[in-house]
């Protein structure tokens, strides 16, 4: 009934003030909703659907990478085991690292932001929503390229950082390294696209009144991360492109006999690779800063120092890359500089930790599952940070370089520093995304199994490393005496895996039959909790007006805007600093073209592994897809 009524009432330029309040939601749903079925699936540009898809895909890659880890632990559980041959083992550890870094860690953090940031800043969709759809398809296809390669025994086998000359034309025969290099291109295009969307969403689409000092800390963290992505990812694209040029058309970037240099690869890779660590860690910092105030029941302590720490970390992240190259014989003065900067970055990170602790001490903490993951983070990340300060020193690093000590260190910082907060964030935002609560009882088991399993698995690796066990070996001799500890590590890995299995079980169970969630089940303060769970396609029926840093705590009735059009996708553009309204901008409608653009780009990239001319002929369909994408249609969004 309301549908036919709306068809009569809604004319061009109808405003939200022109229709009865009870029909506002249904009308906005007609305009912003995604059609059902395959067509809707392929064409949607709703940031929530794409974000959800992105998150689920990234977690599937996590599970697949986890299986690879278990295979490695099976092989290493005792000396001279013969489960996996050396060639397959090389592919497995390369796939594990590549998959976890490029297909899980970075994408999952950006994916959470794709879902949460537009809600947190109080807008109706992400900036450049079609680019967002394109980004997801590129990510998905890039991941498939890597895994299909692996299934065909063409998986890369040169380590996740693919050092030359091993990955170069002389030693890396076949197509394995090419698949690695092109997978980089896919995932970096996807990551850069999301970074641009986030920057513009955060700078230009914040709700009126959300001045710089009222931006939620997760949003600040994603802004700094997005800039880090923009400045770091070009380095790896240049590195992987020059590698592929060396391999396919005979350039000599990394060939010392023709004036090239192998260390050039390491410089380019780590100029990206070190900021990459912070591209993964800073979003986690933002998650922690969102979860702690909610469960400490008070505003965060030290908002300004926390923001400055985020920015300082983002900048210092670019001055650390050489600490991955301490054993390459660089000048002593250079090494000292990078030791100093590696220790300096502990300062902003320390400030953050103290701000969080102060918030907890001054608040009345409620120990729900998300908060338990944050406590697990504190414990684990501090250990990882300490071993980080240790390897920042050149003499110590020289001793443990390429041993299991380093493996232990980076799993402590990456899993403790990023995956634990991420799992806490899943428990925290799951009710918003699905409208259902996850189980508190199972959640506590998950925290217990994962934290205990993790520490039992990775702590002994420090000792194995100090005993001299190198990383990336497929087996070892019994006389070396590493057998018992390796067996212990492998068995502990099963506890860790059980924790993850239980986590996935809880996600699936809760999605089907979890207790219904209210709009704001944790009594949190930020705008994503002001809308229903799950949010409607248009996010907010009226775009909120922000008057404080904790809008839902400080206002029982939320001020909002009026006067937006309801017969086209319209949202507010505001000024960068003060978030004062500037324009009623249209937001693009659904489109199939991002999908075609991704398919044609993929044909170009994959074919270029086999013939360089694919870059020329492959560009033609890409051009047509892009023209189809940008050519205006006769929709109200494009016309005005």
């Amino acid at each position: 009934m309301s549908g036919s009524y709306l068809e009569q009432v809604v004319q061009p330029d109808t405003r939200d003030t022109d229709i009865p309040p009870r029909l506002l939601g249904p009308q906005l749903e007609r305009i912003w909703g995604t059609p059902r079925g395959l067509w809707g699936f392929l064409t949607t540009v709703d940031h929530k659907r794409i974000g959800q898809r992105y998150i689920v895909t990234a977690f599937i890659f996590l599970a697949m990478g986890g299986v690879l880890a278990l295979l490695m632990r099976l092989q290493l559980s005792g000396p001279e085991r013969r489960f996996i041959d050396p060639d397959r083992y090389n592919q497995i550890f390369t796939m594990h690292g590549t998959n976890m870094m490029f297909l899980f860690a970075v994408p999952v953090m950006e994916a959470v932001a794709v879902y949460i940031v537009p809600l947190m800043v109080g807008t109706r969709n992400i900036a450049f929503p079609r680019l967002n759809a394109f980004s997801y398809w590129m990510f998905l296809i890039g991941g498939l390229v890597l895994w299909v390669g692996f299934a065909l025994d063409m998986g890369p086998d040169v380590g996740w950082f693919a050092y030359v000359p091993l990955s170069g034309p002389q030693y890396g025969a076949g197509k394995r390294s090419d698949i690695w290099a092109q997978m980089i291109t896919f995932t970096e295009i996807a990551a850069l696209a999301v970074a641009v969307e986030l920057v513009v969403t955060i700078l230009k689409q914040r709700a009126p009144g959300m001045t710089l000092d009222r931006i939620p800390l997760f949003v600040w963290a994603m802004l700094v991360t997005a800039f880090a992505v923009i400045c770091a990812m070009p380095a790896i694209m240049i590195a992987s492109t020059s590698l592929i040029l060396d391999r396919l058309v005979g350039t000599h970037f990394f060939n010392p006999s023709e004036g090239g240099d192998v260390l050039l690869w390491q410089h380019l890779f780590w100029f990206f690779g070190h900021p990459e660590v912070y591209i993964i860690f800073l979003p986690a910092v933002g998650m922690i800063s969102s979860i702690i105030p909610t469960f400490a029941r008070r505003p965060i302590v030290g908002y300004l120092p926390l923001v400055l720490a985020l920015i300082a970390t983002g900048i210092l992240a670019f001055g650390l890359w050489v600490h991955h190259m301490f054993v390459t014989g660089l000048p002593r003065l250079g090494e000292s500089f990078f030791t100093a900067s590696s220790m300096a970055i502990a300062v902003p990170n320390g400030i953050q930790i103290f701000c969080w602790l102060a918030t907890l001490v001054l608040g009345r903490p409620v120990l729900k599952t998300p908060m338990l993951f944050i406590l697990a983070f504190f414990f684990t990340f501090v250990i990882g940070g300490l071993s980080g300060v240790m390897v920042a020193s050149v003499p110590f690093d020289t001793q443990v370089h390429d041993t299991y000590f380093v493996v232990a260190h980076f799993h402590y910082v990456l899993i403790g520093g990023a995956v634990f907060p991420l799992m806490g964030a899943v428990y925290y935002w799951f009710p918003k995304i699905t409208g259902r609560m996850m189980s508190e009882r199972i959640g506590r088991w998950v925290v217990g199994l994962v934290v205990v399993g993790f520490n039992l698995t990775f702590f002994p690796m420090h000792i194995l490393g100090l005993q001299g066990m190198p990383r990336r070996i497929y087996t070892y001799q019994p006389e070396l005496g590493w057998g018992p500890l390796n067996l212990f590590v492998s068995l502990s890995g099963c506890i860790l895996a059980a924790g993850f299995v239980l986590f996935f079980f809880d996600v699936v169970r809760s999605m089907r039959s979890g207790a219904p969630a209210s709009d704001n089940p944790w009594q949190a303060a930020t705008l994503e909790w002001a809308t229903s769970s799950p949010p409607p396609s248009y996010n907010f029926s009226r775009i909120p007006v922000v008057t404080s840093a904790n809008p839902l705590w400080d206002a029982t009735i939320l001020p909002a805007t009026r006067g937006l059009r309801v017969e086209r996708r319209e949202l507010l553009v505001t000024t960068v600093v003060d978030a004062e309204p500037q324009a009623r901008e249209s937001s693009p409608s659904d489109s199939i073209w991002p999908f075609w653009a991704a398919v044609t780009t993929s044909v170009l990239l994959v074919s270029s592994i086999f013939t360089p001319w694919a870059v020329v002929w492959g560009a033609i369909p890409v051009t047509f897809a892009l023209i189809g994408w940008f050519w205006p249609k006769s929709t109200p969004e494009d016309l005005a």
Partner: protein
Amino acid sequence: MTHPVRPVLDVSDLPLHGSGSASPTWWGTLAFMLIEGTGFVLLIAVYLYLASLASTWPLGAPAPAPWAGIAFSALLLVSLVPNFLVARWAERRDVRRVRIGLVIMTLFGVVPLVPRAFEFPALHVMWDSNAYGSITWTLLGLHTTHLVTDLIDTIVLLALMCTRHGANPRRLGDVQDNALYWNFVVVTWLPIFACIYGVPWLL
């Protein structure tokens, strides 16, 4: 929205599209320029890194002949004038002049390709001869890609301006953003020019 709300801020009189820094597309263009600018900076760094390692530079070739590069640079610098005018006409929503301007800018996209085609042989080295050839061909190639991309964009916008969509302020904003991007293509060329032709001359 289920949290109770009270409409207080009337936005009904806001314009439908902001130009310049009020437009999200402008910021998006800026972000992409930052990405690509970082790429160019890194490639120049690679050039200098390789040069610093070599005992003689350029490797196995005389210094590149600068004349094609100078002609190319001159054309690009001259193109800034019509480019500036197109952006201004687009801002004033003068569709007729914008069309003429885009025809001129299309020519300024095509004509520099002629000296550019002579720049590659002027390097006196092939990409697969040595690392010097690899980096110079890559620098020139990447910049040429930007040139061609912007040329295609200009042609598409010209076609668009000749349809009923032309008078739309959002599409005219696209013309302004395209002009901004052309400035980027010109400005990034100058350090690349200095690198390719100036560094061998200095050494």
